[in-house]
């Protein structure tokens, strides 16, 4: 299971996947041409971490994402929820700029159906 650092581009976020700590971060903006293909490494990493029964800390710090990316984020959260339901240790952090009400509301909407630890945090 490898750690991975994907640099951000104009249309895709920075992604940090640290296997030792079980830490995943998605930072920035996301509207790649094909969201499902772009995020495939994240799902591969999640599968490997979960096979190794490690704890996962997943941090979202996004400014904007399009609807295709929104669907993928939902898939990531569903994946984490399933791991949590099977006894896996999971924590999700949703960071939003303190004046970004849309991103705050989006986090609230995403977490409304989840029963895993989900923390909302604002930053300056």
């Amino acid at each position, binding site marked *: 299971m490898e750690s991975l650092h994907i640099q951000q581009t*104009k*249309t895709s976020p920075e992604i940090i996947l640290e296997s030792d700590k079980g830490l995943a971060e998605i930072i920035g903006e996301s*509207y*790649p*041409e*094909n*969201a*499902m293909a772009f995020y495939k490494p994240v799902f591969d990493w999640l599968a490997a971490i979960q096979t190794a029964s490690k704890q996962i800390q997943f941090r979202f710090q996004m400014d*904007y994402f*399009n*609807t*295709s990316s*929104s*669907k993928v984020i*939902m898939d990531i959260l569903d994946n984490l929820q399933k791991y949590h339901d099977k006894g896996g240790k999971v924590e999700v952090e949703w960071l939003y700029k303190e004046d970004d009400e*849309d991103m705050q509301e989006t986090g609230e*909407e995403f977490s*409304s*159906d989840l029963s895993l630890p989900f923390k909302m945090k604002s930053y300056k």
Partner: protein
Amino acid sequence: MMENEVVNLFKTYQETSEYNLLVSFKGRLSQEVLTELGSMIRTSLSTESKIKKIFAVFIELAQNMLHYSAERKINEEQKDAGVGILIVRENSVGYHVASGNLVLNEKIEFLTERIQKINSMSKDELKSFYQQQLRSERPEDSKGAGVGLIDIARKSDGPLVFRFDKLDGKLSFFTISAFFTKEN
């Protein structure tokens, strides 16, 4: 014949004197072009409070065109992308973001019903519809979640305006536009 035609930009200029044309594009929309047009919007609207919403709506309409326009063109790298028209215009009361591209006639009924349903919903109803769609299976022919139009309606002000102009037995030209009011 294109080579003999005088392009009358004065006429275009006069016709558009009622508003500012922030973005105007016609042709094969690649992801690269889409990204540049998006940057243009951000530059033009840097002081506008609804900039994030306008940008987001533009990206949804543009990516719909790139992925689903029935008119396709392949570039040198053998990558295909949709052809169509995109405009963003501004006047004293607000902004219009609009796209136009070819669609198969068999899609007209679905699109009409979808947009009419969305237009009949309140913001709260749109929110639940969005969440419900996001949690359901991906539509078969979709690269996203089938929530693009719902998202456009949630972010913009007022109903979505659309029309179909029939070309022949197979194709129609689909125009859709979203409106934003200025807060002042």
